[in-house]
């Protein structure tokens, strides 16, 4: 039986384990990923199985972690780096954007950077500042990086395997609020490319797109909408850079209406990009302007306000109704 039901956290752990079995050059590094197995336990058991040569705790310095991962990649290794929380990736921002993202280009493709940077991201966990952020826009704006985020255990498993096999640096955003809900994982069959968007639910009135944890919110909204007689098509972006537009454009061709949802700040965001590009490419088929549903353009608030801050099914439905009102 190749299909098993498990939480995303375990699917990611299984993918890391498989990748290390497949390729002895794969290394895991980061803060507390060894003995502790990471604060979210994604690397649990891997130190014992693969030893300190391949799974090692780093000194507490994100720039140092990414900078040394770059050196290891130059040497032929394939480091998979864990950044402990979304809000702590910024000390490594220089190494990621001015070095990791460009070394392949500087070497005319002769020195690749097969580095995966895993970042547990997003809100809904009621934590303190810097522990619930959605930094995808910073990376999606940066040439030389690929940015992906799974919404379910099956994708998490296969996307991680593909990301580690890729010869490009990949920002792998793990929706931490989805670590524990269970879902099926087919370990035998991968049905879709790392950078492909996926239709999660068919519909005819409005197209809604999102990624990571937002996808479950969109599906919940679509259910409610169905009860109100509105048919919502839900698309999981999966990849934020590059973005696979064809399925989105096809869907909009059908619905004429688009809602883009994200936990990130709305201004200068991936949502802005999708709205602008779909407008450019599907101007005549749009019956309404693409509508964005985002967090507000404010830092993540105290946890007691997060329900007001983050897009909820109701906020999605409000946008769907606005789109339908045109």
């Amino acid at each position, binding site marked *: 039986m190749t299909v098993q039901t498990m939480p995303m956290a375990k699917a990611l752990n299984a993918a890391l384990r498989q990748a290390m079995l497949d390729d002895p050059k794969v290394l895991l590094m980061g*803060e507390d990923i060894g003995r502790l197995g990471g604060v979210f336990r994604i690397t649990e058991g891997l130190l014992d199985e693969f030893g300190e040569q391949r799974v090692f*705790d780093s000194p507490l310095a994100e720039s140092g972690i990414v900078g040394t991962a770059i050196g290891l990649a130059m040497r032929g290794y394939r480091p998979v780096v864990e950044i402990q929380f979304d809000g702590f990736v910024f000390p490594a921002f220089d190494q990621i954007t001015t070095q990791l993202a460009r070394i392949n280009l500087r070497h005319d493709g002769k020195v690749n950077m097969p580095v995966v940077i895993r970042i547990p991201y997003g809100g809904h966990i009621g934590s303190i500042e810097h522990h619930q952020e959605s930094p995808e826009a910073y990376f999606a704006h940066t040439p030389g990086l690929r940015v992906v985020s799974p919404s379910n255990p099956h994708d998490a498993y296969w996307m991680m395997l593909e990301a580690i096999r890729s010869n490009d640096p990949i920002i792998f955003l793990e929706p931490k609020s989805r670590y524990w809900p269970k879902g099926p994982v087919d370990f035998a069959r991968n049905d879709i490319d790392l950078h492909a968007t996926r239709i999660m639910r068919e519909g005819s009135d409005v197209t809604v797109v999102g990624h990571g944890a937002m996808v479950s919110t969109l599906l919940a909204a679509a259910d409610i909408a169905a009860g109100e007689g509105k048919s919502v098509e839900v698309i999981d972006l999966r990849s934020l850079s590059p973005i696979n537009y064809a399925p989105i454009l096809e869907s909009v061709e059908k619905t004429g209406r688009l809602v883009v949802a994200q936990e990130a700040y709305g201004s200068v965001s991936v949502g802005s990009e999708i709205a602008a590009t779909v407008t450019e490419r599907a101007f005549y088929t749009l019956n309404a302007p693409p509508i964005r549903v985002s967090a507000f353009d404010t830092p993540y608030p*105290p946890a007691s*306000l997060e329900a*007001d801050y983050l897009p909820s099914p109701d906020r999605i439905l409000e946008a769907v109704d606005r789109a339908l009102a045109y």
Partner: protein
Amino acid sequence: MVQLLDPEGRLTSGADAERYGHYISALDDHTLERFWRDMVVARTFDRSAANLQRQGQLALWIPSQGQEAAQVGSAHATRPQDHIFPSYREHIVGMIRGLDPVKILALLRGVTLGGWTAEETNRFHQYTLVLASQTLHATGYAMGMQLDGTTATGNPESDEALIVYFGDGASSQGDASEALVFASSYQTPQVFFIQNNQWAISVPVARQSRVPLAQRGFGFGMPGTRIDGNDVLASYAVTRDALESARAGSGPALIEALTYRLGAHTTADDPTKYRPAGELEFWESRDPLIRTRAFLESRGASAAFFDDVDGEAADIAADARKRSLELTAPDRSVMFRHVYAEAHPDMVAQEAWLAGYEASFAEDAS
């Protein structure tokens, strides 16, 4: 390693006692008893806050058990005009400066993002959660003291200095080293106080450094001293000495307090996963409260005194607990109001949008 009070609570002799003893002999009974009282308050408040978290009343708690001597001694070494830049574990340091502990609980209850200003707390600045970033803020602040001419005038009663706290793990951050560069370069009036509690979550200090962190400043031109961080007298005297020379214009200094985190990193952590067998027991036998109590007893402190302190500490913890339970989510508008100091059209528009959106449900309901 400077130790003035041994694990049995006896005053030590020797060079360190020679050099720093006068700071201790200058302390009256009342002050020494105050040290004890603050250590007990810290321990008691910590236990009660951890319970609050277990009962789901806090998102998280950050225990400080085991580090009371390092924190209480160094806090009392500051003068009223001094500024303090904490990390996130120095609850008792703030309380000693007058911080209402409920404000710490509010932060960890998800009710505020900061909760206090240095003005309200006799110069105890906010916690900073991005490791080591506060070391640079402190250095810049100390540069400001120099520009203001409120330090190194020769008057210790008014000359300012500051202390910044960080951990053994944070010492590896580039920001911590850059703060040493800037502080040495500008000869700022500041003390870098590293609480080496042996662990950065699950990572032992050996991963961060193979030599004592007290030496970290040497290559930046900064003197460093390692102290027994479980000795409240050493923490007081050595910090006092460093602050006095900083305020006198002799430049910055670094102190490494060798201590131990007896609890979990946070209530989300499980130390049994990484702690070697016996380590906890060893450090429990080195509990800073044990030696401090023994010392005071040897000086004749009465059982009644200890009972009174326990009672007072319990009251403080109970009161903070009670008031924290009354803390409710702030009004939604706080999300928008202070993102900018000056008027900002997007904040006005987004706050209005949210208000209208919420109102629409009220209408639906009615």
